[in-house]
């Protein structure tokens, strides 16, 4: 930082001696434009937040926790709530964590630490990057074809398990990429030191590389989780319930193989209802979803700040 600041002043000095005392008008305009761009994006965000909060806050003040516990409905706004939506979203999140994280981190370790720099491996790497940019609806179609139809024996068709697996596949490329970045950021000197004292490759990875990369991996994976939490389109395709859901006292395990709904799906359905009451509920549900994703993001930042090591 110090050297960069020093070079900046040096370049300023050079610029000043070149231009004399004339002001740098072009630079000033450019800076103003940049600030304007920042404000425009902030303004959009603020307007959105204001719109949602002003629309939904009445629901919280009137119904409070009752709204958070209430069940899915598209008819009776007075008792409808996001309880089942939150539960479903958490259930899906757990599946994503259990499936995508180990798979993704393992794949990243292989790509970064074991795979040699062959043409084939570069091809795989490029492909994973492309997959991270594929629209989520495509993953919905994939989930429908594979988890709902092909593996119906295993997932039970349009069940929470199939939905969770679809979301897991959706975030898998992101988990791989962020984990690989974190592994790459670990300096080579660490590995070399490990080899230097006679550690095997696996020992070096297990006791040096992974612990050093863990904060970065964690941050990336938690951020990918908040993407999974907000997805609607793929869930609609693989059969998340939009109208009414009664689990009939099924156990948690049975619910894994039963119908499910999720917060973004609830928001999507409520937004298309005619009654004004449901518009307020839609805003309130959006606030809950925002709070959930914000919590996930905050968690990622806290983890990063706490464990991040500078090399």
């Amino acid at each position, binding site marked *: 930082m110090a050297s960069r600041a020093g070079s900046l002043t040096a370049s300023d000095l050079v610029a000043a001696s070149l231009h004399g005392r004339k002001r740098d008008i072009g630079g000033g305009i450019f800076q103003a434009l940049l600030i304007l761009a920042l404000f425009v994006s902030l303004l959009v965000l603020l307007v959105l937040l204001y719109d949602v909060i002003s629309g939904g806050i009445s629901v919280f003040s009137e119904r409070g926790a009752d709204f958070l516990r209430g069940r899915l*409905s*598209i*008819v*009776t706004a007075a008792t409808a709530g996001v309880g089942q939506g939150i539960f479903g979203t958490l259930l899906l999140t757990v599946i994503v964590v259990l499936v995508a994280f180990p798979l993704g981190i*393992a794949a990243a370790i*292989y790509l970064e630490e*074991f795979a040699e720099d062959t043409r084939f491996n570069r091809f795989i790497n490029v492909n994973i990057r492309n997959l991270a940019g594929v629209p989520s609806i495509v993953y919905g179609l994939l989930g429908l074809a594979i988890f709902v139809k092909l593996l119906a*024996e*295993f*997932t*039970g*068709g*349009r069940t929470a398990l199939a939905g969770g697996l679809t979301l897991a596949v959706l975030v898998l490329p992101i988990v791989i990429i962020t984990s690989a970045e974190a592994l790459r950021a670990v300096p080579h000197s660490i590995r070399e030191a490990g080899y230097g004292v006679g550690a*095997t*490759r*696996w020992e070096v990875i297990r006791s040096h590389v992974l612990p050093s990369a863990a904060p970065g991996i964690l941050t990336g994976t938690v951020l990918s989780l908040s993407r999974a939490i907000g997805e609607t389109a793929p869930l*609609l395709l693989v*059969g998340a*319930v*939009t*109208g*009414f*859901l*009664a*689990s*009939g*006292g*099924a156990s948690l*395990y*049975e619910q894994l*193989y*039963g*119908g499910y709904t999720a917060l973004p799906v609830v928001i999507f*359905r409520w*937004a*298309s*209802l*005619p*009654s004004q009451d449901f518009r307020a509920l839609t805003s309130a549900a959006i606030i809950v979803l925002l709070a959930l994703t914000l919590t996930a993001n905050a968690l990622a930042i806290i983890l990063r700040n706490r464990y991040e090591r500078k090399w």
Partner: protein
Amino acid sequence: MIQMSSRFRRIAILALPIALLTAACAPEQTEATSATGGENVSGAIAISGSSTVEPISVAVAEKFNAQNPDVEISVQGPGTSDGFELFCNGETDISDASRAIKQEEINACKENGIEPIELTVGIDGLSVVTSSENDFASCLSFGDLWALLGPEAEGFESWSDANQLAQKYDAQGAPYPDEPLVITAPGEESGTYGSFIELVFEPFVEEQGLKEYEEEVAPRPDYQASGNDNVIVEGVSGTPSSLGWVGYAFYKANEDQLKALEIDGGQGCVSPTPETIASFEYPISRPLFIYVNKQKLQENPAVQAFVDFYLSDEGIASAEEVGYIPLEESELEATRSTWESGEVITEETGS
């Protein structure tokens, strides 16, 4: 070489537990699925189909669930056609529909050994709407609708563009003023789109003997289409000279922003009211159905109980509670007797 082989060994060690885990999990979970699957049949009801009928089924399900908390119920509304696809695959027990089942859908069901029982549960009027600020349109005949919304109207950007076409078909609303014609209406995936074609365009094509549209007729493709009725309401209320159509319940919920036009189906102008819709005097009204998989009745007592409740006075009142028009007494009797006899549908009804 030594390094290479040890690397492969390490990978193998990593891969082994994963392989074992998958192998260990798979059979166990398949077993569990079939076990829960067996249980589910006795106490689970899956309903899907029309998003128009969805609120009725949800309202019934809520009441039913309050009395039978142990039954698993899920209600969804992806659309009538999507609903029939699931239904004929045996994935759902009951299919909501805002139009009658088509012959090819009956055949698809038959191939999978599924026999649907058709039950009428309510009536929906399609309201042709414009903005409440529109002061020149009040009553449109089928000819007007054809001239403004039909396939021949493609490219008309102003109401007056349709004058010539309207004259050709003796449409009584013409001549129209030179106002921008802004159309927002349901898209193809919506049952309301299909119903509009069936209730307005198909009879008109037949009456006028328009040969080229006999096989297939669709509205002009160049309008703002949406599957979300709120978007349609906003689009229509946004311009004074707008035009579009929505289900009656949606018009009713947004009465302050929309103006429902009277429709002349040949017997004079009729405005959509609960009475004119229930008596089918209002020309563009449609019955709403549920289709029940007959085979599921024997296997799954919950389905039997649910439909019994659906057709009870308490259940069927839901249609009116969520904004539709209740069946007239005679129609309701007919539905109930169909249910009691368990008569399945084998041929498309021409309604």
